[in-house]
């Protein structure tokens, strides 16, 4: 007899987390797995379970992700074009925020779209919504030809004062859609804060630019569930816990899910922050809704507040000017990743925290590599205890930062490294109540599945 299940998936930059629950009794977890995708893809994990349990029948799949985060540091939008009211091609660039700026250096997020993919069109709507300059059908037609020549696939349509009168916007979107382009209309998206044009345009452009990566994620998940469930059953949460497909808002769903689930189940008090010590990210999560501050500036995308800590799992080490071993400010990527994942060559924070779980050979390799750096420092270290020493140092630094960042009385510790380090962190954190939520008991994917199940039942009712 077939056993119906619902599935929760959290897909991060390189790690995934999957849980299968019985649809009849969601308190029954049938399967849970966490994996490092480059070595053990989701498909393999799922298929090997299904082969052993042929009675399983997959129903709805609920998904939250942080998969696109890894591309935010790269140049986006290769095939994304913008059609902009003539004379306003640089309007968005003029409002571009820089990530960091000193008088001698400027750190910029790579361009969202290149200049040659911005096309001006003669049209103008006044701020009262009056048509000052009508659209020209011939011009639009020739623009379509140019877009084809440039091999543009996704087109953002950004017209001045379109929120006052969208007649031009509609015509352009219809023509482009009919020509087979994927069209991004900023007014049709579920973005908040429609008060100003440039955050809306920016969000629309990021949406278009990340679409390829979301499609990649969708393909991975589709492939994993091939022959197990239909594509219609793949449900991507958005930041309001509705389903909106593999889109940018899915990137902000998890923060909402974790607070909703933990508060609803009375596992945490309503006004608490979460100290997330995850596989891929160390951060402070607060249950306050804000507009997402993207690397390109303020957007209209809704998100919960997330403050990334100074130390991250893929930070490595160097000998600083005090001739002491210091943690780098920049992060390595998860591909090839930390040494203990057997692909990378540079010892990272992740490796130090993970050093106790390694096999003998890998442990030795890591230790040799790390010790080669540590012994050059001016401070004396013990070769035998070096991992313990630096583990303490990492935790102390995290707690020091958290202590000053969080203004809530209760801090919830959650994530891969939470359980193991809870007692030490509790001892070090002064004046706050540190509450542990074990990821081994309440995984990310479990919360996603359960919120999904609730949602399904609400819809039935």
């Amino acid at each position: 007899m077939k056993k119906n299940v619902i599935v929760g998936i959290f897909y991060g930059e390189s790690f995934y987390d999957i849980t299968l629950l019985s649809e009849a009794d969601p308190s029954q977890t049938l399967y849970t797995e966490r994996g490092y995708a480059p070595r053990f893809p989701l498909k393999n994990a799922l298929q090997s379970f299904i082969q052993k349990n042929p009675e399983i029948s997959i129903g709805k799949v609920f998904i939250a992700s942080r998969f696109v985060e890894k591309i935010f540091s790269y140049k986006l939008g290769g095939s994304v074009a913008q059609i902009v009211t003539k004379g306003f091609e640089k309007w968005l660039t003029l409002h571009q925020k820089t990530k960091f700026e000193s008088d001698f250096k400027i750190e910029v997020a790579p361009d969202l779209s290149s200049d040659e993919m911005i096309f001006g069109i003669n049209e103008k709507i006044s701020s009262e919504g009056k048509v000052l300059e009508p659209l020209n059908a011939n011009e639009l037609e020739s623009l379509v030809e140019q877009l084809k020549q440039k091999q543009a696939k996704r087109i953002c349509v950004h017209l001045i004062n379109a929120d006052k009168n969208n007649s031009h916007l509609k015509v352009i979107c219809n023509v482009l859609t009919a020509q087979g382009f994927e069209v991004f209309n900023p007014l049709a998206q579920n973005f908040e804060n429609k008060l100003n044009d440039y955050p809306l345009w920016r969000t629309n452009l990021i949406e278009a630019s990340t679409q390829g990566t979301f499609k990649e994620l969708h393909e991975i998940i589709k492939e994993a569930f091939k022959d197990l469930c239909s594509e219609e059953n793949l449900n991507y949460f958005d930041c309001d816990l509705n389903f909106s497909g593999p889109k940018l808002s899915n990137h902000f769903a998890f923060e909402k899910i974790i607070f909703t689930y933990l508060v609803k189940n009375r596992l945490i008090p309503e006004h608490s922050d979460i100290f997330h010590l995850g596989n891929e990210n160390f951060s402070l999560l607060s249950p306050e809704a804000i507009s997402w501050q993207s690397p390109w500036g303020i957007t209209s995308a809704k998100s919960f507040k997330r403050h990334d800590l100074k130390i991250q799992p893929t930070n490595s080490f160097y000998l600083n000017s005090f001739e002491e071993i210091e943690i780098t400010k920049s992060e390595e990527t998860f591909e090839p990743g930390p040494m203990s994942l057997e692909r990378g060559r540079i010892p990272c924070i992740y490796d130090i925290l993970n050093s106790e779980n390694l096999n003998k050979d890998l442990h030795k390799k890591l230790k040799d590599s790390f010790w080669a750096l540590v012994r050059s420092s001016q401070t004396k270290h013990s070769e035998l205890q070096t991992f313990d020493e630096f583990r303490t140092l990492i935790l102390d630094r995290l707690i020091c930062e958290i202590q000053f960042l969080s203004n809530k009385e209760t801090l919830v510790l959650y994530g891969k490294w939470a359980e193991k380090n809870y007692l030490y962190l509790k001892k070090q954190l002064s004046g706050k109540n540190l509450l542990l939520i074990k990821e081994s008991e309440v995984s990310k994917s479990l919360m996603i599945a359960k919120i999904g199940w609730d949602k399904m039942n609400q819809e039935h009712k």
Partner: protein
Amino acid sequence: MKLNTQTRWSDFHHLIECLSEPFNSCGFSFLKPDGKCLHVKTSLSQTTLGLMQSPMLIKNFFPLDEDTIYFHNEPSFGCLTYGGIQFIFLQSGFLFCVQEKFDFLWNTESKGKPTDPLKIPPFPLIEKGKINDFIFESFKANPNLKSDFSEQLKSTLKKIQLFKQNFSHLTTKYPQFFTDEFTQKYLDYCLDEARFKIRQKVLSQSGYECELTTKETFRVKLATDESGVKIDFQGTSAPQKIGFSDLFTDGVCFHFLSHCYQFSHKMNSATFSLFKIIKPQHSLVAAKQLSPLVLAENYGVPILKTALHSCLWNIYGKNQTAPHNYFQPIMQFQKESTDFLNMKINNGRSFYFMNNYQQDRGYYLKNNSDGHDFPGMNEFSNFGIEVVSCEEFNSSDVNALSQQPPSNAWKLVLKSSQNLKFILFPEIIAKILTKDKNLSERTHMVIELIPNPKNMNYSPANFTNGTPITSEMNELKTEWVWEKNNFLIIRSGISSKII
């Protein structure tokens, strides 16, 4: 944070960097009980020295204890940014200054001078652990203040009180870090490191001289040697229309050069001791009669940075970021009511940049420092201004260092649907006197006001032959009436041409 019973400088440094986390808005300083500054962090260079010195000034003149929090916005006590308020307090023997920026209205004075509408002399906001209700009542009654001002103040106080608790815990947990001996050694280390970094660069000297539109002369010489950095302003005129204080000048110099020599994350009393700054008495860089803070901020910081950067360029050459005109013309549109719309516009300028993964590096021409200073379409239209176009125009001033196309200048065309007042804080450097052709070529921003001709269509190409209203200006602030249906055209300037 103890490693094998040793105490590490790196851990203490991390700790003091964490201290400023709750106060990222404007400025923060942390001082030893003897008044030596261990750490100062600010995004506004002119406030650096003020933050370092004001806690000790307050401590010396007022009964500051651990249950009291003083606040003020007094420039002579080191509060040197428009809208800034400093909060000074003691915790576990250490002194702290937090500077927050508040959104004051501009030009609330009837005489039309932009100045702080609210003067706060040093005053205890919290005394013997209790909030001073009298202060909050008086703020409520002040029509020049926004209604949420008191709430913002209270929120800052809450943050400070939480901070005090956290810091107190920290001193108990890590007593090894908070001894006089350890903190002094930390300062000594920072001094050695900064000295080493200065020595690593070529030791040389250079100068810069310019004439201001307000007829003052500004002159500076920058020299580095084994003992540190010497900045000499001899030859700079007495203030006519612009003047800023000792602390202001020192703050900009220290902040700016510590970024150049890459010890900006270790700005403290020790690293400041490497700077010898000579300012002629009563010159505009050490004025007794100070300009309003808005003017000092708009003009003083850019003049100092432009001059110092030009000197650095002459010393270190093209491996450094190119110098440029730091000045950002500021515009204000005013309705008949006191409503203002502010707009800050950068001249095109070249910046050294790298992206997050350091894939791309090079020079970048940047028009706008931050999108926040440039209104969005709805902000313009809510003010009765129609944005007709905002185009880039190709300039002949191709910057040889740029990897970008030379389209770095732009033209903004605006049309008013009601009578407005247009206020401009224009360029101040009239003429560069230094004989250095690299620095002499640049174009200024040009602004034209054009009456609406009949049947004019909206093509920006039609706006080419207006008469600039920005020529021959020798005032720091100029006002025009911008009548209904007239056009205002703004062409951005371009910084120095560097070959």
